């Protein structure tokens, strides 16, 4: 019986603070550290309190810093029950390079749909999404999705899954394998390289999915409730790991979540959406120092205030919203 119950085995990398040096070392090997990584916290600058207004940011540093622009995007679905269902209505959003942005909102408000539009998997009914000034026409390796359903390739081992992207990009097998092994170690799955997805627990699959996407170095990570299906403990651990990875690598991340804690803990910006039709309700800057440590942050009154405020807004939108 090779399958372990939960997460990693005894030989796996420890997590939390001790993990820092390890994943740091590995990352230094894998991804050249960004010189600007630890610099400004500029993140994302615009935001429209009402999604229909397109507010120019005061502190904008030129269009170059916005990696993703979503301009008046609407998505209407033809459904069998209702004739037309407006999933997204007039969404405008700018996401600055290297920002960690969370999208938070009630179920069915169109968070996934918005992410799929940025990914190029779905084309919006109206409006446009742009990546670095270019209209997004389809999926591409510059935007790496991590789906809630994992969507691993079941016929490939852990190593095969992680190597898939690099191989597709024409990296030689030996090199791709070395990189992938390092990534697998970084996400704490050393020793599981030759396991098939069916032999992994949910949390382990999620780690593989993350490693598989990181392996082809997308500029933007699109994560759709990646930790939604996990137990609280694994979830916390993966949040810490993701934060460690991100604080060194500083990719742009668009992160969909249901969890207010998670959004505040991880993000520079939290985009709050409301339902029926899906709109941006508010964008909140999370002005908390980095690197963030969970145990410090939980005691930080600023963190607590963000969580409480956002939760209150959530409740209001629930009260005011149309029933699902």
């Amino acid at each position, binding site marked *: 019986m090779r399958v372990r119950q939960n997460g990693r085995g005894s030989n796996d990398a420890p997590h939390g603070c001790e993990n820092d040096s390890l994943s740091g070392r590995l990352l230094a090997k894998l991804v050249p550290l960004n010189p600007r990584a630890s610099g400004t916290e500029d993140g994302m600058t615009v935001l429209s309190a009402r999604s229909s207004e397109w507010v120019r940011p005061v502190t904008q540093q030129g269009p170059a810093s916005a990696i993703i622009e979503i301009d008046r995007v609407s998505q209407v679905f033809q459904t069998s029950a209702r004739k037309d269902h407006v999933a997204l209505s007039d969404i405008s959003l700018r996401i600055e390079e290297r920002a960690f942005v969370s999208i938070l909102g009630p179920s069915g408000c169109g968070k996934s749909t918005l992410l799929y539009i940025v990914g190029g998997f779905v084309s919006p009914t109206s409006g446009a999404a742009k990546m670095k000034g270019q209209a997004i026409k389809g999926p*591409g390796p510059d935007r790496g*999705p991590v*789906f809630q359903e994992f969507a691993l390739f*079941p016929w490939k081992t852990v190593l095969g899954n992680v190597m898939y992207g690099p191989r597709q990009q024409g990296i030689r097998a030996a090199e791709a394998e070395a990189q992938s092994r390092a990534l697998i170690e970084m996400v704490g799955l050393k020793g599981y390289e030759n396991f098939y997805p*069916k032999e992994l627990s949910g949390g382990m699959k999620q780690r593989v999915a993350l490693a598989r996407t990181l392996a082809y170095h997308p500029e933007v990570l699109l994560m759709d409730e990646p930790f939604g299906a996990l137990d609280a403990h694994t979830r916390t651990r993966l949040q810490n790991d993701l934060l460690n990875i991100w604080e060194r690598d500083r990719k742009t991340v668009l992160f969909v979540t249901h969890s207010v804690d998670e959004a505040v803990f991880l993000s520079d910006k939290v985009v709050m959406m409301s339902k029926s039709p899906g709109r941006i309700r508010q964008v909140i800057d999370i002005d908390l120092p980095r690197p963030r440590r969970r145990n410090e942050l939980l005691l930080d009154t600023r963190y607590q205030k963000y969580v409480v405020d956002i939760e209150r807004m959530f409740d209001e939108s629930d009260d005011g919203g149309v029933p699902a």
Partner: protein
Amino acid sequence: MTSSAGMTKRAAPVLACIGLLVVWQVASLALKNDSFPTAIGAIRAIPDILGDKESLINILASLRRMTMGFGAAVLVSIPLGLLMGRSAAVAAFFNPLLMVIYPVPKAALMPIIMLWLGVGDITKTLVIFLGVSLPVIYHSFEGAKAVEEKMLWSGAAMGLSPMQRLVRIVLPAALPEILTGCRTGLVLALITMITSEMIARQSGAGNILFNALDMGQYDTVFAMIIIVGAMGICLDAIFERVRARLVRWSEPQFDMPLSFS
């Protein structure tokens, strides 16, 4: 698994065969009918058939047609089924055609095909091809349709073109289902092979069988039935080994026996 349980599992098919032969032997002794030879009589006739050069050539010719019909069917049906599963337009085009062909016994088409192509290998191979195609198309279609969309999206994000996604994601993801279809197809190939030789009596294992029947050599008839049955079992066993090896990654991890012990 304990070794005694393993032994039981291995011995079971052998025991089943022996049991069947015993029942046969007893039944034929009891019935005392000319057209129902004893099991021992039939088994005795087997070496005569296999030792005869003419018969061997016939059987090998059958196997050759079967292999060709099966191979061609698989080569055509898998891509077609996968395309149908991933493209609504392709499915809309081929579905009505297949719906018409599906319930028709392929052997019923043989007289017409014989008119066009004669009674030779081409006709028989074509009939086998038709017999094998439908289950393989159907299972490939179902398998391709069931491929998780997010898996294809992941591939697209890695830069796979639509064609690459079909070959490198849809094909492997649907493989367990495809191979289930192929296994059904293999048995159907054997059946259509014999049927086609029954209709176009010229060569082959079916030809030996029905000639013997005409001449009242019932031992030979039953010996041929055993030989064809054994061929089916062997082919299926070989195929099953290949299949299990190819889709090891998808086999259920824990089986839940409805154990009575």
